[in-house]
């Protein structure tokens, strides 16, 4: 098993990060690139539109204010604790969301499935089916405990690699692999109790 998290690829955001470190006004490009991902992470964690917006705002303001302190450590030679901008940004988001969750425990939140699907407003029937499927998947993921849930959201929604998730969660890559595998088995059991997992055509 890996002892420490390690990101072994180069940071694809490096040009944008360096530009923003020279001129904070250039941070906008990074903001646009990661807005939906950070907001999604916050929304899955908090299940509330307003709380997710607050967390997103705090995350990007903190990232901008501390960007001059960020140092890319994305080469194998950098060893333990390697980090890209994306990992660093989600570490901030994780801390912000943890603070929000402590606040949210003191007030009720709306179910995430109450949001309205607008991906294709002309296909009402299809949207209803998709909404039900997305709701079932979300409910199953939402039942998972802390880092299992976060790992699945980062893997499937934010499309991070295992190494990146390890950096965000502060765990080893091996531990994250086991975390995700066990989370998937748990979600599979959960969905099988409510519906049959019918075979689907391959992704194109």
């Amino acid at each position, binding site marked *: 098993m890996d002892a420490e998290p390690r990101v072994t690829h180069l940071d694809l955001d490096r040009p944008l990060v360096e530009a923003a470190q020279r001129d904070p006004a250039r941070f906008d490009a990074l*903001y646009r690139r990661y807005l939906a991902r950070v907001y999604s992470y916050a929304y899955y964690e908090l299940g509330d539109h307003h709380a997710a917006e607050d967390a997103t705002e705090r995350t990007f303001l903190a990232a901008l204010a501390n960007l001059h302190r960020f140092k890319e450590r994305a080469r194998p030679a950098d060893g333990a604790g390697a980090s890209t901008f994306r990992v660093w940004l989600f570490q901030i988001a994780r801390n912000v969301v943890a603070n929000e969750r402590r606040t949210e425990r003191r007030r009720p939140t709306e179910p995430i499935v109450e949001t309205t699907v607008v991906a294709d407003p002309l296909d009402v029937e299809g949207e209803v089916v998709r909404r039900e499927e997305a709701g079932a998947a979300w409910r199953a993921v939402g039942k998972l405990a802390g880092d299992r849930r976060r790992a699945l959201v980062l893997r499937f929604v934010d499309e991070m690699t295992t190494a990146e998730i390890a950096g965000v969660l502060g765990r080893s890559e091996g531990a994250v692999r086991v975390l995700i595998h066990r989370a998937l088995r748990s979600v599979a059991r959960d969905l099988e109790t409510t519906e049959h997992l019918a075979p689907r055509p391959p992704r194109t």
Partner: protein
Amino acid sequence: MSLQGRDVGEIEALVTDRYLDSLLGDREVQTPSAALDEAVRAVSRRLADDLPRFHPSFRFEERLAVRLAEAAASMRLPLAAGGERDAAPGPTQIPLSPRLAPDPLAALDDGDRPRPKPYLVGGAVAASALSLAGAAWLAWRRRSASPMARAVRAAHQARG
């Protein structure tokens, strides 16, 4: 990567991880290893297809962009005066923006997206509020490189 010294759970997790790399990495999905649990394979495909990515409202996006620009400008002033960067105002000194109602046009934002995923817009949004006119306005305003934005701008310039 050697499998020696790993227990069964770690090996299963490694097999699952390789399958997810293939499934989620925009590559042709490889025939899963025989060692891959069928339930894990099925639920992985299910989550890859059905877990949506959420997007905040368009107005929230633009409002936060303005706040970030203001914060960036205030950080540049001490730098221009030769001050220390750490003297720049931090996020805790910037009050959070007041909340706005969700924007129904937010779902049409076509910024830097990695690949198509089901998208949901946070908050109670009436799908019926979407209109072609609104979509055209958004595409024109965002200066997007999408075909729709180009067409709208071309029509706008032709009229002018």
